[in-house]
């Protein structure tokens, strides 16, 4: 009994997610159908992939508000370069572009010592501007029929998108729990000075955090472009706050130093499930906005209060 209580206390968000799923299963007959479950997973996949990088960033004590622009930019590169270099090199170029964005962010945070919040607001303006410029602001469709399959096809009924997300989540989990690299990021997020004094190369890790975050954003950008067979500079406008919200709702604290990819995924799934369920129930979008806001307030508020009680 007490064990159950303890699990519930420790895994509040997981319990919440399960309750939500059960409740929605009862309310809407469509909700627990195979098709719909796949839908929900696909809906979480783009943000889920970005959550991998964002979890690194937030555990490391930083924000990355530029993931939306990175996503848009790399999606555009993947499509715009294809006619010149072919699809696979174009996708690699897109990832390289993302990594470059991450390096810029990382350099500014780690070497110039500017707060990541400001840096990534600034770079998101810059890279969104560049994305708008190279596309002249138009949505650009891919002319390669192969490209769109990545984001839309399935294998054994499971979309590639979901498979890629699961793979990235597993890799992230491994890196965060079983490698020195991952643990050092926890140390940096927990206490930068200690990390420095312990001989951890903080500048390297800070930069890595942003590179990883940008890399997953780039991956998400390519996949999203593939899913839509189109890239556009406005794709990803809502991404940064949505991903951060998911990660934080899962219980990865914005103070840094704590959290896990599992928790982040729970957070992302909670939002997908709610959105999907409200859509299925035909709840008008204005109410949906309100419900989402309330939920965010309640969950974060509860977490804040629990943290306060603990200390």
């Amino acid at each position, binding site marked *: 009994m007490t064990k159950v209580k303890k699990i519930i206390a420790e895994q509040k968000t997981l319990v919440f997610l399960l309750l939500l799923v059960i409740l929605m299963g009862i309310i809407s007959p469509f909700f627990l159908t195979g098709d719909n479950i796949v839908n929900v997973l696909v809906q979480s996949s783009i943000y889920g992939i970005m959550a991998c990088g964002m979890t690194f960033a937030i555990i490391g004590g930083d924000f990355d508000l530029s993931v939306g622009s990175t996503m848009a930019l790399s999606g555009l590169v993947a499509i715009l370069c294809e006619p010149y270099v072919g699809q696979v090199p174009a996708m690699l170029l897109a990832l390289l572009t993302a990594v470059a964005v991450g390096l810029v962010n990382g350099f500014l945070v780690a070497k110039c010592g500017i707060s990541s919040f400001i840096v990534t607001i600034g770079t998101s303006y810059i890279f969104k501007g560049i994305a708008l410029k190279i596309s002249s602001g138009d949505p650009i469709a891919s002319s390669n029929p192969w490209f769109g399959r990545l984001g839309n096809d399935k294998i054994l009924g499971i979309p590639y998108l979901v498979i890629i997300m699961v793979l990235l989540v597993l890799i992230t989990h491994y890196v965060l729990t*079983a*490698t*020195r690299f991952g*643990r050092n990021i926890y140390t940096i997020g*927990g206490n930068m000075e200690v990390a420095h004094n*312990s*001989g951890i190369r903080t500048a390297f890790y800070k930069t890595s955090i942003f590179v990883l975050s940008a890399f997953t954003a780039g991956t998400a950008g390519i996949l999203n472009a593939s899913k839509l067979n189109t890239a556009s500079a406005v794709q990803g406008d809502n991404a940064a706050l949505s991903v951060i919200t998911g990660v934080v709702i899962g219980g990865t604290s914005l103070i840094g*130093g*704590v959290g896990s990819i599992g928790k982040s995924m729970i957070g992302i799934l909670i939002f997908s499930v709610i959105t999907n369920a409200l859509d299925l129930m035909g709840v008008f979008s204005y109410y949906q906005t309100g419900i989402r806001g309330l939920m965010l307030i309640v969950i974060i508020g509860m977490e804040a209060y629990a943290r306060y009680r603990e200390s």
Partner: protein
Amino acid sequence: MSTDEYILKLDHIEKSFPGVKALKDISLHVKRGEVRGLVGENGAGKSTMMKVLTGIIPMDSGQITIDGQAVTITSPLHAQSLGLSIIFQEFNLVNSLSIAENIYVGRLPKKGIRGIQWKKVHEDAKALLKRVGLDVDPSARVGSLSVAGKQMVEIAKALSQNSKIIIMDEPSATLTDKELEHLFGIIDDLKKQGVTVIYISHRLDEIFRLCDSVTVIRDGEVIDTNPIESLTKETIISKMVGRSMDQEYPVRAGTCGDEVILEVRDLCRKGVFEHISFSLHKGERLGIAGLVGAGRTEIVRAIFGADKLTGGEIILHGKPVTIHSPKEAISHKIALVTEDRKTQGLVLESSISENTTLAALKKICRAGFVNRREENSVAAQYVDTLKTKTPGTKALVLNLSGGNQQKVVLAKWLYTDAEVLILDEPTRGIDVGAKYEIYQLINQLADSGKAIIIISSEMPEVISMSDRLLVIHDGKCKGELTGDQKTGENIMKYAILEEGA
């Protein structure tokens, strides 16, 4: 192995911070396997010297030689690889990580694709914790430990590096006698294994107990180094402060009054302390002793309204009062000097004058507007009377040394005109000279009729500076000692024995 007698040589080290020359042509030679004491007033430059040595801050000029080889230490990692490890004065731990991870931070053992060997980490950590006498689960978060617990983890961490030279920067400041004995044991072991230890402390008793030789530093300069046999407390103190001091604790001139100012009955806070009752008279200095983690801080925090009480009453001047917040405590003329200056006592990024008036802002406000001129003159007055060393009242508290920071905290509470002054570890990390001044101040305040509660983990201090002494163990009041009963033996008897009194 080099045959050089000295394992570590620092020559002509210089280091300046903007505005301060912290190290002036420092030279220090340490023999293989010795325990070297390093003493000096606050701000003398001890910590800075050690930070330079371990690559945390770069030096301006000078030469470091380890084992006969000239080295340029570029980073803490580099220092570690040269066999140097350090226990920091300020904790160097990540609260959100487990104890085991903190011990192995940055160098967790790993093996191929399976990654970090968590089992090994926990087993090794457990062994180390046992060695330092800390009986806790290595997977517990460091944040959940008491100050002393953290200190022991720091020591375990330094031990885990198997270094040739271990630097300990005031490891004892937060420890009480039981843990201290353990630490001494560890240092003795290290010495037997041929490890060199540099031991920094403000507590001279320890220096005499542990060290083979002592280096005195004053104002960023090495005064001299002597074998311990040739020194006495008095000679060390006079070297440190540049003048001679007769006694360590000033004797109080006045006596306690009869009027009871504060009385607490049956105070309880669930799971932390229970049934605490005592009374405090006008002009009295009430000491509270106990081992670290006994719950002393929690008791006074609860009285001050910073934590919730679950039972009991507080009676001020014969009238029961309820205190829900520090604000209410202050309005009842109670003040609390917290044990943790930096995070709880001061607004570091702010000026001396702003800190001084923080708890009694109303006094310098007219119709809600802050009178800055008056504020500065108030602050200047306290700087004067407390002999705070600072370029001016507008200086940021951040840039003051520990002792001077503590004086700012005291100034803040004195300005509230409190009748009851609670001092939790008022001299932690403060040098002898400044300590003496603070003791004198405490006595003056008591003589002027203030009721004072002093919590200290330093037994001689709490014995000498109190008129009456409570001993707390495990959240319960185990005994009350007065006059000649106030001895170290008696305190330990109550503080350690499960069923005392």
